[in-house]
């Protein structure tokens, strides 16, 4: 006798009618579980399944099966500690609260990176929403469902999630939930299963993207698991839906969130098809008949207002003023303006409005056609940001290369973070065409074999900022680039991996790039005391991130040399440099006059006296990270809080005790 709670369509109406299509067949489920091998990490344990009812959907809760992409993680990619792979499967630590390595942690928290010397300005900042996305992760699940709930298990500093996107089988991204600023205010200081109310939708998906914003976070946020709940789709419906996309374009049932303008823009490739006659008619209407029209359709009390309007309207303003006004608009609104009239089309397509171009906020809409359209307009392009675009093949490398070849000569800033469409020939094109580049950002472009093994990039000679965060590259190429770009100010080599000998890089920097202002070597390998010592020749250094760089290596005199020779140091991250001695800490106190951010996470043999010394002497200090430091137990919490108030420094102090 099986327990069947079944209510769907023409079946019996006597059972509960609250959950249509809910199907729970316990005995069948138990039988199935026994046969299943115990290889359970990926198995969706909370699946409620009945084999005999493939015709109807059933409710399903599933955990992440795999990770497709992520913008940053704390750990290095071959590790399983603090890395994105930990989001896969069931939660391991939830509901425990703490800083555990079995979770997914991102690289940054709070606003500290925005306050550091290496901070960048957003290109076309008006495109950004009120809660901009700092980091994201794209995950996929096993079964297609119509999503009803997405639950995110946060085990440390919850409150970072701002958007949840779903990728439907019609190859469109839909935003299922977006945070309002008020949502981020009441966040408990405890682990939580965060399941915000999703938009009602009929899309079928098994891929999600979660966006994070770190500004309000006190410290790193950590995610243990993500769960996607929804109703599965019967087989026959799936086949219908997987029909070619062209047929389905007319169906606006799925696109309930997008207005008619967006749909129209897509089909028309952003070109208004207005004939000359229509435009003039519209123009005349606006100038002459609009006021009468408005009068006719408004209530009495407003009539007086409209009677007294003067004849001046927007189109009477000189072109330059209009351009200035439109320059504040975000890209989407700019395109909409172009739909208004012939005049506005001319103004909104003026090249001066396309000097700074960023498609980062429109990553879900960016495709080759858009690039093509923009190429026609952006004749004076200087700054381009295509980060996060083209993740699912929407942008073809050929189109991108064409774009660059047409418009890349005068480009000064190019950001291609997490661009999955990049291949070797794209990078080659960058190197050949964009020789005026001052800033090149290629974060998270790791491929196998590494993209950056082409000497074309060595053509770039004017670089001041080079960002290769989480991107593999050939050391030879990097060294030759360092030699050619003497004006280099900001260099980010985080997670560059074991193939790069950092000592060599350090010696090169000391020889050729003495203007260096910021250097990020997070989790780089093979940096020894010798390398650190050579870095001290870059006397303009204001920011140095050596986190997890030297591990157990003994420092000798090198840290002292660095501190002595680089008095301008504002940000110094020495996370997990276990070789730091007490003398080094004393030197930090005496020589670190300008220090604003200091990270001493996981340092051994650190005493209260040394920390107090640092707090007293480094008067500009704003951030001090003492997590996982030896002598700072939970019982010192009060002392730390006192110091924090006294010296006006944000002191981080968290540690977990052995849970086993």
């Amino acid at each position, binding site marked *: 006798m099986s327990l069947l709670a079944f209510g769907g369509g023409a079946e019996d109406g006597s059972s509960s009618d609250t959950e249509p299509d809910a199907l729970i067949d316990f005995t069948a489920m138990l039988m199935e579980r026994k046969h299943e*091998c*115990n*290889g359970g*990490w*990926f198995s969706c344990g909370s699946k409620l399944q009945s084999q005999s009812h493939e015709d109807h959907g059933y409710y399903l809760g599933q955990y992440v*099966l*795999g*990770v*497709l992409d992520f913008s940053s993680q704390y*750990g*290095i*990619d*071959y*590790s*399983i*500690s*603090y*890395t*994105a*792979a*930990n989001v*896969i*499967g069931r939660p391991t630590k939830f509901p425990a609260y703490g*800083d555990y*390595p*079995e979770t997914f942690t991102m690289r940054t928290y709070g606003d500290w990176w925005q306050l550091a010397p290496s901070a960048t300005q957003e290109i076309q900042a008006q495109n950004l929403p009120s809660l901009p996305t700092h980091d994201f992760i794209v995950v996929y699940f*096993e079964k297609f469902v119509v999503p009803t709930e997405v639950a995110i298990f946060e085990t440390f500093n919850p409150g970072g999630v701002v958007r949840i996107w779903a990728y439907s089988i019609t190859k469109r991204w839909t935003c299922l939930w977006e945070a309002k600023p008020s949502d981020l205010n009441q966040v408990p200081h405890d682990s939580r299963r965060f399941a915000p109310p999703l938009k009602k939708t009929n899309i079928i998906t098994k891929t999600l993207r979660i966006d994070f914003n770190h500004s309000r976070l006190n410290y790193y946020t950590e995610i243990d698991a993500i769960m996607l709940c929804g109703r599965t789709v019967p087989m026959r419906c799936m086949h219908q839906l997987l029909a070619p996309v062209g047929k389905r374009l007319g169906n606006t049932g799925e696109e309930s969130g997008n207005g008619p303008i967006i749909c129209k823009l897509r089909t028309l490739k952003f070109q208004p098809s207005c004939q000359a006659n229509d435009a003039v008619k519209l123009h005349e209407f606006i100038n002459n008949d609009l006021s009468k029209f408005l009068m006719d359709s408004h209530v009495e009390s407003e009539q007086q207002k409209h009677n007294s309007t003067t004849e001046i309207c927007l189109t009477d303003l000189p072109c330059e003023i209009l351009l200035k006004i439109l320059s504040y608009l975000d890209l989407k609104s700019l395109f909409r303006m172009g739909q208004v009239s012939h005049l506005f089309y001319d103004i909104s397509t003026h090249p001066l409005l396309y000097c700074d171009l960023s498609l980062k906020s429109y990553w879900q809409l960016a495709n080759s056609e858009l690039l093509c359209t923009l190429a026609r307009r952006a004749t004076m392009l200087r700054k381009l940001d295509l980060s996060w675009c083209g993740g699912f093949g929407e942008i073809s490398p050929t189109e991108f290369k064409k774009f660059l070849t047409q418009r890349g000569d005068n480009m000064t800033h190019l950001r291609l973070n997490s661009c999955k469409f990049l291949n070797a020939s794209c990078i080659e094109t960058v190197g050949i065409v964009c020789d005026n580049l001052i800033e090149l950002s290629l974060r998270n472009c790791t491929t*196998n074999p590494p993209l950056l093994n082409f000497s074309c990039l060595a053509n770039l000679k004017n670089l001041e900022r080079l960002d290769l965060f989480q991107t593999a590259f050939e050391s030879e190429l990097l060294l030759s680039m360092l030699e050619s770009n003497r004006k280099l100010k900001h260099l980010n080599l985080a997670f560059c*991996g*074991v*193939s790069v000998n950092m000592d060599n890089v350090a010696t090169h920097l000391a020889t050729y790039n003495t203007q260096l202002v910021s250097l990020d070597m997070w989790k780089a*390998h*093979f940096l*020894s005391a010798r390398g650190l010592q050579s870095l001290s020749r870059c006397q303009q250094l204001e920011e140095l991130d050596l986190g*997890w760089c030297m*591990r*157990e*290596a*003994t420092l000798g005199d090198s840290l002292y040399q660095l501190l002595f020779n680089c008095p301008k140091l504002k940000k110094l991250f020495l996370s*997990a440099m*276990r*070789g730091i*001695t007490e003398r080094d800490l004393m030197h930090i106190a005496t020589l670190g006059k300008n220090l604003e951010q200091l990270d001493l*996470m*996981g340092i*051994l043999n650190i005493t209260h006296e040394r920390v107090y010394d640092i707090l007293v002497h480094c008067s500009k200090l704003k951030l001090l990270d003492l*997590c*996982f430091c*030896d002598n700072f137990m939970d019982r010192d919490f009060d002392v730390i809080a006192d110091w924090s108030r006294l010296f006006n420094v944000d002191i981080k102090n968290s*540690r*977990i005790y*052995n849970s*086993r």
Partner: protein
Amino acid sequence: MHSLNWTSRLISRALRSSFSTLLDSASGATTKGAAKTTPIRSRPRFVSVVCGFAKDNLRHKYKPGKYGEDSWFKASTESADVMGVADGVGGWRSYGIDPGEFSSFLMRTCERLVRCTHFNPQRPVNLLAYSYCELMEQKKPILGSSTACVLILNRETSTVHTANIGDSGFMVVREGEIVHKSEEQQHYFNTPFQLSLPPPGHGPNVLSDSPESADTMSFPVQEGDVILIATDGVFDNVPEELMLQVLRDVEGERDPVKLQMTANTLALMARTLSQNSDFLSPFAISARRNNIQARGGKPDDITVVLATVAM
């Protein structure tokens, strides 16, 4: 510093063989799907139990996964069953380091690695090595050293692959005879090979062996084989004939309760003998061979992982 060098070599080799957790878990999903369609022939699996005692029962509160400074793990996936023990080297206590932390972490990470990533069932040495590398990626500094012994049953090929560093070990009994046994690895008496992470500055003074120095063995197994993995607390106190007597009784046993009873017996035997100050234990015998006048058992943490192969 030299430990840093070989770990980095290992990591670069790992990368070249694309050990990356993400790549493999993605491809692992698809291969898993493929594997499911083939019928599951009779594949061997372990029926395994654990028992043990901490040396100082009063001081160490019982925590799952460890007995004093010893630690163990068991994990199983579709393609392999894995077991392992690790014995923390006690000498670190005088440096203010908890010796059990290293071994416990090593075993916990091995377990996680088996579950999370696509590891090669042929190479338990790699498992140990990656686990060791993970140690260095922890925010909390973990210091100390331990021996280790890891055993993988490859279910596709019914072979067992082992890796052993130090004086823990394993023993395979079939039809009343010991068919395979691990060798003790020692630098000198009572100083086994060990994986270690010394505090900075003490590097050159501390014995640190790389996982590549592990003894590896591979052999096929049959239904009913008894496999014992234990730390030196067992091998140093219980003579081989006694162990054989206990183990041959449990050959082919599938009932985990009976197996647990045997494991308990073995552990208790080891404990009692270790407390006995007159008995000529294997430890005493080898001490005398090294011109040290010792007698009686060796008080030590005892960990017994006992498994039988079932098809």
